[in-house]
């Protein structure tokens, strides 16, 4: 299944209430949001973090809506995070997994999507190994919103949103500031690891730079994208040179299958040159944050002691993921507000 990322789709529609505001139906890419849209999501996330702290952490906002998770790739946290978010908004959830579906009998993606749409659903949360598949699904369907939960090496926008939220929250928390300006302006963020195959890196670079942070990519040349044209980033091959200067070090999962593609000589060599070992972590500023989208290969890209250490905010990322996805689902399905903020 391959697709172009330029399939034209009805991103903007007139709200069903006729005179209502124009609103965005889909979340495909961080680019859909822009700075204003990202800040709108982060602002709304504050409200849902508060909901999560209540005795009954559930609100009736999306009663009667149905959210389908359509995952063609394995996932633990993203799928459970979206389903938890939908349930806490009182939406009904349906779950689709390839291994127990008619896809095994040869049903095409398009037939699968149209069958599910015919049951009457309000949103598809889509993960697929092909870049651009969420755009295709949006083109085939008419009613439902489509949310990209990871398409190939392309994008994973809700991960970038929860990363922005976590940085903002944890910076304020650790520096004793009031939860303040939404922007990440002036922060220096290093993204370390397999940038080339990482949809998280792509979405994070777009989101971090949109909010005013400066980003340095740290990776061996074989794990960088063939072209960085249009990326507003610096590149380094020396992690020890970068660490003392950054506010956030964001580690990517090293996908073990890359070894077979001969992009790396060995895991041990990667850890020796690019891993965040205990010794290297000591180079970080005392208020620096260590982040990772999970799942973590302990002892490969990050030492277990560092992943569990005081600088690590990895579990905060997971916790905030639910609130961020509640904000996205509410904006698309409930609020009647244009995500792009215009």
């Amino acid at each position, binding site marked *: 299944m391959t697709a172009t990322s330029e399939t034209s789709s009805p991103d903007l529609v007139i709200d069903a209430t006729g005179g209502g505001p124009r609103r965005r139906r889909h979340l495909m890419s961080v680019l859909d949001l822009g700075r204003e849209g990202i800040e709108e999501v982060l602002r709304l996330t504050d409200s849902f973090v508060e909901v999560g702290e209540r005795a009954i952490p559930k609100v*009736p906002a999306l009663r009667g809506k149905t959210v389908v998770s359509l995952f063609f790739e394995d996932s633990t946290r993203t799928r459970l995070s979206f389903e938890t978010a939908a349930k806490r908004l009182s939406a009904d959830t349906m779950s689709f997994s390839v291994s127990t579906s008619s896809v095994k009998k040869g049903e095409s993606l398009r037939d699968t999507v149209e069958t599910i749409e015919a049951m009457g659903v309000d949103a598809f949360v889509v993960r697929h190994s092909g870049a651009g598949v969420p755009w295709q699904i949006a083109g085939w369907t008419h009613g439902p919103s489509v949310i990209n939960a990871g398409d190939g090496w392309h994008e994973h926008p809700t991960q970038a949103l929860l990363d922005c939220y976590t940085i903002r929250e944890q910076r304020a928390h650790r520096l004793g500031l009031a939860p303040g300006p939404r922007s990440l302006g002036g922060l220096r963020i290093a993204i370390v690891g397999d940038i080339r195959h990482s949809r998280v890196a792509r979405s994070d670079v777009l989101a971090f730079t949109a909010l005013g942070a400066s980003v340095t990519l740290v990776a061996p040349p074989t794990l960088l994208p063939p072209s960085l044209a249009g990326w507003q980033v610096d590149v380094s091959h020396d992690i020890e040179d970068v660490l003392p200067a950054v506010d956030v070090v964001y580690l990517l999962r090293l996908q073990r299958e890359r070894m077979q593609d001969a992009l790396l000589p060995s895991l041990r060599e990667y850890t020796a040159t690019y891993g965040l070992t205990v010794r290297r972590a000591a180079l970080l500023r005392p208020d620096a944050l260590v982040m990772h989208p999970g799942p973590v290969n302990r002892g490969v890209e990050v030492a277990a002691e560092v992943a569990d250490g005081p600088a690590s905010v990895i579990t905060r990322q997971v916790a905030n993921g639910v609130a961020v996805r509640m904000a996205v689902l509410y904006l698309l399905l409930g609020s009647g507000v244009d995500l792009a903020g215009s």
Partner: protein
Amino acid sequence: MDPDDVRRAIWRMAHEIIEHNHGVERVVLIGLQTGGVDIARRLGEAIASVAGQGVPVGTLDVAFYRDDIGLRPVLPEAATEIPMDLTGVHVVLVDDVLFTGRTVRAALNALSDFGRATSIQLAVMIDRGHRELPIRPDYVGKNLPTRRDEMVDVSEEGVVLGDVVPR
């Protein structure tokens, strides 16, 4: 109402709240975002000076409980801060203007997610009529007859009956 009228109404309502609850033990004020927050704070100050004992004051935004989600843009305007379990307390919900009653309905649903209050009472600065639900206030600053399309503005400068809402 000018600012002095508003201040006198707040003092009277503070006395009524203390009388009705036989003191202020286990009384909590919750101001509805955004108009009720300042009135709840001022009621709290008045109660503290009359009763010689402060009461907790929280805030509530009811956006996610509204019944017009999907009919118009609905976003939370400000923070909800209820720093305690409401089980076993007397909650006084505070708003500036009581109109259709739909915001209060949403607030009643929201409060039930914070615990089972012993009672929930309603204090408003202005009751302008036109109720669409069976809801009535326990404490009223002033009953102000209005037309449906008029605006009522409550601020530091008092209460103003404003321009007709363009429709």
